[in-house]
């Protein structure tokens, strides 16, 4: 009766053929395409033992699904009907009731059987819900796997009712087990015909399965696997380097980008006039990398050589026409850069300051000229503080000069053309015009760090300018209500806050975040646009920066979620201090007294919360009211430990302080063993609560133990 479900497994090849998809979006789309298919298969109970791989090239997204069952498993259910007494007559023949039950269940009466239930014997019929075939299911889910891909900005190519995608979809290949699947995506019926490379292959290539597809595409000028394209590029870059006795100016993200920009990448070498080498390397490399996607090459001593390596999307350049074209484009670009380099320096960097009045930072926060004054003020405040703390490298005048010049390059032709060189160009011009290395480097570096892995400014002066700039951005923007949301952060405030955290931690700078925010608020009030920041906003800004700090401690420095919570709960304003406390906490966590004490602290916090006693309450402990040795003992232990801990904290010996606190475990355990906190007598009860409140208050200033051992949250 039941057809044996063959354990046959089949393969699906699915390709979405498009006009050129932006290369930078392909890696994410490829990944999302895979998870979409996996999720949809799982939802259809069709994912057991199935492997999904996805690939992409500029004109296609491809999925290779292996091990697909040909159909869903059948689901058997049992339906009960009338009781035995009604179903069969006295001679055991089926009654009308049994016959109508069989009809209703669409089975023969002879297939009915009896089952024992709690209420007695009943007639039953077996029902099989047949699994749908993979073919039926795929026709439903494949369009969704495509449709559900998310893009930064999608488009329509037919009209408002038409499909939406990142670029027009032009063909679909769907082959299941060697046969084409009757599915339609974005209004296009799938077939088994793909298209080769635009210029190297045929525009109609028939395929029967993935391996066949991969092979035929290769014959038609498309390498479907991105890793293979990247390998081909790497091998050819190496070959050129070997042949030319130079090395590649390494650039991992460029390697990846060109692998996704080309369906058949080939590396060619071009050359440029060595006279251009008089331009700074930064400018030459930016022009080559960002504008032309070329690799720069350098000699053994790391100096650029007048060659470049371009990745082209065809197999060869036998006549050298492509090389000549790229060389010509680069020559014009370099000539522009050279023109800007000379034209910009007809006046001095400081002469660009008035022009900054015409460059708006944010409409309510005024121009960059206004921002410069605020950065100078904050920078002076920082460096004066550091100098007063005895930091000999804190140079107030140099930081002020660097801040004054830091934004001037925004008005230069060079930065207007090559915006990604902001800061760098200013630093180069400053040096060329005789500013000291310290100031030139500070200008050069002050946008740094631009990400988690980017280094911080090289010298302290650069750190001061960078901090001042970022503080002004965060405080100013929050002040006018420009607050980052999940999807929008137009002034890159997260990056700015992360930069603040990184600089303070890596340079171990003594900065009180609340005071620094206050200084930036004051600068905003005393300079244009003379806007105030409310105390609530200042708290919001501090929390915003601290959120970034928590992230850094957890994700970059490997502290546990509960450790970070415990230390931040004990107060966080000086991040270097926070870091020391975290290190101490992590070190002591392994000691035997620690975790049990943390449990006790948690208990104390709960008791106090339940009794509505805030840790900072004004209750005083009255030793006269103690009734037994355990509470007297705890009180003495707390007083002794408190004075010890204070001294250790002052000396920055956080680990010793925590060890002292951990030493309280015995006294705390005794207390809870022998004392009932919520005593009948109100005075006694309040006295005990006061003792616990004092304990919590005194010993949660390094880290709040009650946070420890909480569940990991992410």
């Amino acid at each position: 009766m039941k057809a044996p479900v063959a354990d046959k497994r089949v393969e699906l090849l699915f390709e979405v053929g498009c006009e050129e998809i932006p290369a930078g979006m392909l890696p994410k789309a490829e990944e999302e395409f895979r998870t979409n298919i996996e999720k949809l298969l799982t939802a259809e109970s069709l994912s057991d033992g199935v492997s999904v791989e996805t690939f992409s090239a500029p004109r296609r997204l491809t999925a290779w699904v292996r091990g697909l069952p040909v159909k869903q498993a059948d689901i058997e259910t049992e339906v009960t009907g009338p009781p035995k007494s009604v179903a069969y007559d006295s001679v055991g023949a089926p009654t009308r009731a049994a016959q109508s039950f069989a009809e209703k269940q669409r089975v023969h009466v002879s297939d009915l059987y009896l089952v024992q239930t709690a209420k007695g014997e009943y007639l039953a019929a077996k029902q099989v819900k047949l699994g749908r075939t993979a073919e039926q299911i795929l026709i439903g889910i494949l369009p969704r796997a495509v449709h559900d891909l998310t893009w930064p900005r999608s488009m329509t190519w037919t009209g408002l009712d038409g499909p939406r995608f990142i670029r027009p979809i032009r063909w679909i290949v769907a082959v299941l087990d060697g046969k084409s699947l009757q599915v339609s995506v974005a209004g296009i019926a799938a077939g088994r015909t793909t298209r080769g490379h635009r210029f190297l292959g045929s525009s109609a290539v028939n395929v029967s399965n993935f391996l066949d597809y991969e092979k035929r595409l290769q014959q038609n000028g498309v390498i479907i696997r991105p890793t293979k394209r990247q390998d081909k590029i790497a091998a050819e870059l190496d070959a050129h380097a070997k042949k030319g006795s130079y090395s590649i100016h390494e650039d991992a993200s460029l390697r990846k980008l060109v692998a996704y920009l080309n369906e058949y990448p080939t590396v060619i070498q071009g050359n440029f006039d060595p006279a251009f080498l008089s331009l700074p390397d930064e400018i030459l490399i930016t022009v080559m990398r960002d504008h032309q996607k070329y690799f720069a090459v350098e000699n053994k001593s790391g100096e650029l050589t007048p060659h470049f390596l371009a990745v082209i999307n065809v197999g060869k350049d036998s006549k050298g026409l492509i090389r000549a074209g790229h060389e010509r484009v680069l020559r014009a670009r370099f000539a522009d850069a050279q023109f800007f380099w000379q034209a910009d320096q007809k006046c001095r960097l400081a002469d660009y300051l008035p022009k900054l009045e015409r460059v708006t930072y944010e409409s309510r926060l005024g121009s960059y000229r206004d921002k410069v004054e605020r950065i100078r003020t904050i920078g002076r405040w920082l460096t004066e503080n550091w100098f007063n703390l005895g930091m000999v490298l804190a140079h107030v005048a140099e930081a002020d000069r660097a801040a004054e010049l830091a934004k001037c390059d925004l008005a230069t032709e060079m930065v207007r053309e090559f915006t990604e060189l902001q800061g760098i160009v200013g630093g180069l011009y400053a040096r060329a015009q005789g500013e000291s290395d310290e100031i030139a480097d500070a200008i050069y570096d002050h946008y740094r760090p631009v990400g988690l892995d980017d280094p911080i400014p090289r010298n302290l002066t650069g750190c001061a300018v960078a901090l001042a700039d970022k503080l002004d951005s965060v405080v100013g923007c929050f002040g006018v209500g420009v607050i980052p949301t999940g999807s929008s952060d137009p002034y890159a405030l997260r990056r700015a806050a992360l930069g603040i955290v990184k600089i303070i931690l890596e340079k171990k700078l003594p900065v009180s975040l609340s005071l620094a925010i206050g200084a930036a608020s004051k600068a905003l009030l005393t300079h244009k646009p003379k806007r105030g920041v409310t105390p609530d906003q200042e708290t919001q800004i501090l929390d915003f920066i601290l959120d970034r700090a928590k992230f850094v401690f957890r994700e970059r420095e490997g502290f546990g979620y509960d450790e970070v919570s415990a230390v931040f709960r004990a107060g966080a304003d000086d991040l270097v201090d926070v870091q020391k406390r975290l290190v101490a906490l992590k070190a002591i966590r392994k000691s035997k007294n620690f975790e049990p004490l943390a449990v006790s602290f948690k208990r104390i916090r709960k008791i106090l919360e339940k009794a509505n006693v805030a840790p900072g309450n004004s209750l005083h402990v009255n030793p006269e009211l103690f009734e037994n040795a355990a509470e007297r003992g705890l009180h003495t232990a707390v007083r002794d430990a408190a004075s010890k801990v204070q001294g250790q904290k002052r000396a920055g010996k956080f680990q010793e302080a925590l060890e002292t606190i951990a030493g309280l475990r015995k006294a705390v355990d005794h207390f809870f063993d022998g004392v009932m906190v919520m005593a009948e007598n109100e005075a006694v009860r309040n006295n005990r609560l006061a003792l616990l409140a004092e304990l919590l208050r005194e010993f949660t200033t390094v880290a709040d133990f009650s946070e420890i051992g909480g569940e990991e949250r992410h």
Partner: protein
Amino acid sequence: MKSKVKLEKRSKGLNFQDLILHLSHFWVKQGCVLQQPYDVEVGAGTMHPETFLRVLGPNSYRVGYVQPSRRPADGRYGENPNRLYKHSQFQVILKPSPVDVQDIYLKSLGAIGINLKEHDIRFEEDNWESPTLGAWGIGWQVLLDGLEITQFTYFQQSGGIDLDPISVELTYGLERICAFLQGVESVYSLRWSEDKTYGDIRLMEEQQFSEYSFDRSDAPAIRSEFELHEKQAKELLDGFKGVEGKERVRYPLLAAYDHCLKCSQLFNLLDARGVISTTERAALMARVRTIACRTAAAYLSQIGGASVQREARA
């Protein structure tokens, strides 16, 4: 000997005027109306009513034309080999966008003498937006051996209105393409015709208009001209609201659009003169955009009315 001379001539690439002729011919064969440049100063071929207005509404249309595009701030007194106060675009609109539009475009490159098999041609992401026209689209810049030669855009909005159907806009940078074909480094040494260079024909214009827009234009006068044109555009647009029936079809919205274009060009002149701050800049652009968007909306209702009338008469 004779054949050698011929070969040399071929390898030199098309003259500037022949490039225009070849492109015109190619697109006429694709069913395009061959239009003429618009006779009001514009900054780009998109601003020609044949693009800005024709992409609105449901009617199919194919058109091609050269549009000299004035960008006062890009002038370099004729001293920079690549930058021009006024450059020429060859603009094509295909409405609705055909499914094989990329292939057709590539064939047009063949038609101007580019052997696709010997070069590296790619479509690199580049979305286009004109804040003053309330227009944007999705597409690419087409790179020929690393040189940007065409802007290829699927128009999504014009005058703030979602387009349906979608038009494709192709904008060829004629000077760049021609310099590539002829293998010259400076735009001024391009051969325009057999015996005249681009410099012979256009250098004086570059010098004088750079001098005018950077150094001699009368900013207060330009400001008041801007106000005047804006006022006329608004009055015309306001007047359209009350017009009914036959009057509606002949109501001069096209004149309102001309005033909008004037505003745009006057704004560019002020910008080149360096007399507007960034905040004012945004505000002026918004004023031009407002007129452009209102014109587009009014035009759409006007042509809607026109097609209804045609049906009624039929």
